[in-house]
């Protein structure tokens, strides 16, 4: 009994630490003071200011586009990789693993500036293509990890059964492998989206002059005078993702149930 109570107490403390800054950020988005100072006066002023801040809206949209494209590319490439590696020899597998893990062991700062140097070598200006490539490089390992976990836990005999019943590779992939992988594909895409959406460092190095993404906008605003509009945007994004997450969980639940049948 004591063990359980102290366990929950500990979890509570962890969540207190984890969520206090987020609570502060949400609260401050409704605080009238432009300097986030107390006492608290309720106001939705920053939300209407945000709605009229074209620069902030543009950079948020940029982030959404970049993260969406990154998520799609990452998850498609990662799925192809996992299908390819599934039947590979252990030696090839471990080689592939170490190549994929590499971006996790290189600080993003270094990856970002080395890609910037690639542009310099090629005589190109900073551009969205290289920025996207950079985002894919850092998001791909996460998508691969999610898919790998799912592939390892999958019952491959079902695929073999499909082959032995005469289905070709394509049919087996569409009717067996893909549905089994589907939750991991969604989770991997979500993770890749999130890594890209919050990525400040790579974007900072590779963004074309004059454009920006939300994290860059936040950084410059923190550097040169913060406005609570940033709090308002962050609150909206948090709410939006929570809703999206909720929908995905609901969808996955029904897809899991249909798989059980």
């Amino acid at each position, binding site marked *: 009994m004591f063990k359980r109570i102290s366990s929950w107490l500990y979890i509570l403390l962890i969540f207190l630490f984890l969520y206090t800054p987020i609570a502060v950020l949400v609260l401050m988005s409704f605080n009238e003071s432009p300097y986030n100072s107390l006492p608290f006066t309720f106001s939705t002023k920053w939300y209407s200011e945000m709605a009229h801040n074209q620069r902030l809206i543009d950079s948020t949209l940029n982030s959404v586009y970049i993260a969406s494209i990154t998520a799609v590319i990452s998850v498609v490439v990662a799925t192809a990789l996992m299908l390819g590696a599934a039947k590979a020899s252990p030696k090839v597998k471990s080689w592939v693993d170490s190549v994929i893990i590499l971006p996790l062991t290189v600080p993003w700062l270094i990856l970002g500036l080395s890609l910037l140097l*690639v542009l310099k070598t090629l005589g190109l200006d900073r551009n969205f293509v290289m920025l996207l490539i950079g985002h894919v490089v850092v998001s791909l390992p996460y998508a691969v990890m999610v898919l790998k976990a799912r592939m390892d836990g999958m019952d491959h*005999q079902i695929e*073999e059964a499909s082959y032995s019943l005469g289905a070709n590779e394509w049919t087996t992939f569409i009717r067996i492998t893909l549905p089994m992988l589907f939750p991991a594909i969604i989770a991997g895409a979500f993770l890749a989206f999130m890594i890209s959406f919050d990525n*400040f460092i790579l974007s900072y190095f590779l963004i074309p002059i004059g454009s920006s993404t*939300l994290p860059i906008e936040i950084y410059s605003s923190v*550097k040169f005078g913060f406005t609570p509009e940033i709090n308002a945007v*962050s609150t909206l994004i948090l709410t939006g993702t929570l809703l999206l997450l909720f929908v995905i969980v609901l969808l996955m639940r029904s897809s899991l149930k249909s798989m059980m049948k």
Partner: protein
Amino acid sequence: MNERQGNLPFLLNCSRVGDVVKNRIFLMSPAIFIMLAFGVVPLFIMLYYSFLSDGPSPTFTLQNYANFFQKAFYLKLTWKTIQMSLIVTLISIVIAYPAAYIIAKVIQRGQNLLLLFIIIPFWTSQLVRAYSWMNLLQDGGILEMFLRKLHLIGDGSLGILFTQTAVIISLVHIFFPYMVLTIYMSLDKIQPSLLEASKSLGATPFETFRRIVLPLSKPGIVTGSILVFVPCLGVFAEPRILGGPNGSVIGTVIEDQFFEINGWSFGAAIAFILLVMVFLSIWITSRLIKRGD
């Protein structure tokens, strides 16, 4: 075992084997290409730049590295950055381990929900969270008011903001959830029967933990440590926001070289030194693990 069995019917269909091998490599190639062309090759390009002099007509030089190793400032900064990253990693292990253990082994229901709550903060920008810490930690800020209400501090100010402590708090806040996840994953794999066996053989809970749970969760601790330590070595935004005038770390110096001073080659040299440090620390960690086994 399982895999070999799985391969059998597949291989029986010999006429297709050639196609399959071709397809498989074809499927793997996009990922491998992206990683090699944009993850590995650029690092060599960076290495190349680090040996060039800055200016309109670059020549080969060792000056960038000489500059770095001759000035106490850079060496001190390197040490400071490593120290800070180590502290963040250690604190993360200490606070994440019990949390992961509780979620994996103590709580019977709702593990997935708790894990979800651990990762939800990932969906708010790291920079915004760093800024929130600024609100919390500043003198006269929320934390100070709260602590004063509880009579935990006197009339003096908190004095945390714009120190290394503030940077460390925010980095732990950003990175320790990764540690919870990786340790949870390794703890979750431990069969309950193993723990019961240990108990029935007369081991105390502490002995069971030290001799079974801890060794089996080591991979999670190591993966988590890499996921925390490596990004910490390269941070520059959080030290800028929370670290104040003495907040410089290697990351901020590299940023300055690239964005303020135009010392690209020197920046590349520092970045390469940082990269060597990263690989060295990963190598040392893996050696330590092997010895432990």
